């Protein structure tokens, strides 16, 4: 994958935005309302969705992996890396496949990604803990992902509309 300086800069800015959104949502944890480990709004997925459509799968994956690694380093919690990577990569693969089919809107792709993220995180928990108990949370996580996925899809759609007439999207 060959990147121009402008693409590389945009990837860096998007990575920083994703990290900022992850930090931002730690101020209003969804787990206070629904006490389930790992449950969150997934605001950083807005950046992933934008990068997937605007830049392509390769760049989106690069941004995702950089965000996961830097997020774990800044939080000083490397054990959380497997959760974010497994959840994020599972979501990314599903979103790439769904976006390639061409029939779905950004909402459908976002909901599919959010649900896949839940599956990936539960798989990471099962692998890390060596216990199948976290699967108990999967139905609730999947149910919540319908709403969080629709929300991030809505915000990403607003972002595309807002940027539609800017120089960034026109090239």
């Amino acid at each position, binding site marked *: 994958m060959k990147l121009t300086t402008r693409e590389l800069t945009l990837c860096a800015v998007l990575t920083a935005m994703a990290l900022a959104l992850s930090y931002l949502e730690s101020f209003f944890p969804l787990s206070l309302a629904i006490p389930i480990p790992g449950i969150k709004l997934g605001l950083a997925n807005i950046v992933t969705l934008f990068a997937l459509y605007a830049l392509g799968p390769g760049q989106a994956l690069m941004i995702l992996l950089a965000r996961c690694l830097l997020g774990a380093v800044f939080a000083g919690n490397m054990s959380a890396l497997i959760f974010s990577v497994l959840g994020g990569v599972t979501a990314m693969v599903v979103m790439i496949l769904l976006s390639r089919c061409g029939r*779905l809107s950004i909402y*459908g792709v976002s909901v599919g990604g959010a649900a896949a993220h839940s599956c990936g995180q539960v798989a990471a928990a099962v692998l890390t803990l060596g216990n199948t*108990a976290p699967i108990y949370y999967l139905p609730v996580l999947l149910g919540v992902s319908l709403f969080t996925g629709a929300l991030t899809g809505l915000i990403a759609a607003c972002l595309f509309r807002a940027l539609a007439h800017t120089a960034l999207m026109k090239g």
Partner: protein
Amino acid sequence: MSLKPSPKLHPVGWDLLVVIAVVILAVSVGIGLLGTSESGPLTAVISADGQPEERVVLSSLTEPEERVLHSGGYTLHLVLSADGVEMTTSDCPTQECVHTGKITRSGQSIVCLPARVIVTLEGGAPASGPDVVIG
């Protein structure tokens, strides 16, 4: 640099297929988990830091019993009583185990990912009588 054209920005009918697929997956897993509840007295299965599980038959407890778990560099206080289990305090960063509250039914669990602690309830099959009588 020219960015790719934007995606469909309004929901379309095909999106419903994704929603239906997620609902079917959630319901299937839920039904699968319901079928795994075991018979016997309500038992708490405690696993900390990959250590062998400890099983406590809750119905045999005459008064609440507190356990202090040291796992993954964290200290967690667990209260076991005849009707359920509760993580009262923990110095883990997420506090999700404490926010879970008291678990009372078979299949429920308290998970603390930072400390690698899992408390699961097993058994406690409901009595054969009706749950509710109306009319």
